[in-house]
């Protein structure tokens, strides 16, 4: 459906960010499967790009983000450098964590990205704490804390949401519900009506949204964020989406009917949906396509850069373990 005075610039910005996220992950996947350069597991968010693209550009750079093992898109949308990210995926010097963390621990504190997490659900109460700290410091920062549908079955979901409610913290919890927890259909292992129903039971204002509708998310984001800044109260967003690829790059996702993902690709790819929206509002096709080609060009160059980056210097191995006491074998 078409809208009056549709903002095509914003629409293109949304498309560009989604294309960049996808192109980044396509290149990362090639680096893994074609080049064998990604050594650890990576979890692709292909099909879920609308959530970070719609939500995170409405934050200030100083605002805070906590993410999951599937955090490339979040990190890019928060403003991190794709080159530093790609180098991290390849475990190279210049990676945003110096090659020590890899995909599951990607972080860029310079843009308020406080880290992906290798432990499902662990970022929920930690995120509440980041908001707690910001509130104590009174510096006006707010937190966006993103986790998956599987994470709502871990204790930190309860403890983190209760904490945010009790201490009245400026945080937006986002459940990125792609319907799967690794090879398990999350609904099979979840009692009750799921994330939104649970969030409401903590008295937290909760909104449900089509997580593949970038425009709708971008409409909602400024409103949610402004309200959190104003009231200082937590909010919850339940965004329904779908993981178009496997759980990890080497997961063929044989546990779900191919027809299911085929249908999703055909009918509910957030990027295609955004392209259609733009087209239906008269955006010239070449400009729509250019978002894709620019993104691919950027991310091919990104991978090329990362590929030629050296390994971290051997002598960085004990850096940043801790200040007190030496980590070296038999240190005296």
């Amino acid at each position, binding site marked *: 459906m078409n809208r009056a005075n549709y903002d095509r610039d914003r629409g293109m910005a949304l498309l560009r960010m989604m294309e960049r996220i996808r192109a980044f992950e396509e290149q990362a996947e090639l680096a893994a499967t074609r080049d064998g350069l990604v*050594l*650890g597991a990576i979890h692709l968010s292909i099909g879920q790009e609308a959530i970070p693209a719609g939500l995170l550009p409405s934050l200030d750079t100083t605002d805070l983000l906590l993410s999951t093992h599937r955090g490339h898109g979040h990190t890019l949308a928060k403003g991190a450098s794709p080159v530093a990210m790609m180098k991290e995926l390849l475990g190279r010097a210049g990676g945003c964590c110096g*090659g020590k963390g*890899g995909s*599951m621990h990607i972080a860029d504190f310079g843009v308020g990205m406080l880290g992906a*997490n*290798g*432990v499902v659900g662990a970022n929920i109460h930690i995120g509440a704490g980041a908001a707690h700290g910001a509130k104590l410091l009174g510096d006006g920062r707010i937190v966006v804390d993103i986790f998956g549908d599987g994470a709502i079955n871990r204790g930190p979901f309860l403890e983190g949401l209760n904490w945010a409610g009790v201490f009245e913290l400026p945080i937006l919890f986002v459940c990125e519900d792609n319907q799967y927890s690794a090879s398990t259909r999350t609904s099979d292992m979840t009692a009750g009506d799921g994330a939104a129903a649970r969030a409401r039971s903590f008295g937290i204002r909760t909104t449900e949204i089509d997580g593949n509708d970038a425009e709708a998310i971008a409409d909602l984001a400024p409103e949610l964020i402004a309200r959190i800044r104003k009231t200082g109260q937590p909010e919850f967003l339940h965004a329904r989406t779908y993981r178009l690829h496997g759980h990890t790059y080497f997961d063929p996702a044989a546990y779900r009917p191919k027809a299911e993902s085929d249908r999703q690709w055909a009918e509910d790819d957030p990027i295609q949906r955004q392209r259609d929206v733009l087209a239906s509002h008269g955006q010239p096709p070449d400009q729509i396509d250019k978002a894709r080609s620019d993104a691919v060009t950027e991310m091919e160059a990104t991978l090329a850069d990362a590929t030629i980056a050296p390994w971290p210097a051997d002598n960085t191995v004990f850096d940043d*373990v801790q200040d007190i006491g030496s980590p070296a074998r038999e240190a005296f």
Partner: protein
Amino acid sequence: MEQMTYAQAAARAVADAMRQDPTVWCVGEDLGRGGVFKQYADLPEEFGPDRISDAPISEAAIMGAAFGAALVGTRPIVEMRFADFALCATDELVNQIAKARFMFGGQSRAPMVIRKPMGMWRSSAAQHSQSLESWYVHIPGLVVCCPATPQDNYSMMRAAIACDDPVVYLEHKDIWALEGPVDVAEDYAFGKARRRTEGNDLTIVSWSNTANLATQAALTLAGEGVGANVLDLRSLWPWDKESVLESVRRTGRLLIAHESVQVGGFGAEVAATVAEHAPCRIKRLGSPRSLISYAPNLEDQLRVTEQMIVDAARAMWS
């Protein structure tokens, strides 16, 4: 004797036990698809979803609920996926499972096998690579197993399932595909080390995958005329003090090699026990007290390698 991988041996042991005892069942995330490392391959088909049960991402409840089910008469096998995630269920394991029988004055048992795949697995980084066996040895009430071969992953798994104590069962993630002969009739007694090599010049104590590296190292040393008696402890609680003391009394030299952090590692317990009861030249080889990196060149610096074991052994004469 059949050839099997380390993963297949465990699956076979679980299947054989489940056929004999209908109260044995397995629970963990994604088990219905055979487990993340395929260590439950074919079991869902044979035993169905009640006995090879999926679970929500609820480590605390997987451990806690399995414990409750053990208290009422079943024998659960708990899958923690990565030993690192088991830290989400530490209260359940340490304060509840390990203590219930004693606190309740012997009214209950917790016959459980708690599987925690551990160890470095190329570029898994700090939250997916830990080896914390020494923690569990320190906790009264727990039995601690670290199988290093397909044979032991069969025999020790059978013994663990048959045991009425809770058994922390630490498989090494890097050797799921390791192949070897398995004699399903060979049984295993907790606390008996396996003599991987004989020798009178040097005792090498190890466990888990490092015991395989130590065995290789012993061959190199043998080529140099150095006879190393490699003892693969297999279970760390109880552990085979007798064999270790007997061996060091013969060799007068003890090298202890393990993948886990050296400071506060189980190697310290072995070294301390020998220092108290059969003083001799003692050397430990473990990981620096540092974190495990994603980058391979940094990760490698934390590994204990076959070459390091050979070098450390040679240095025991210098």
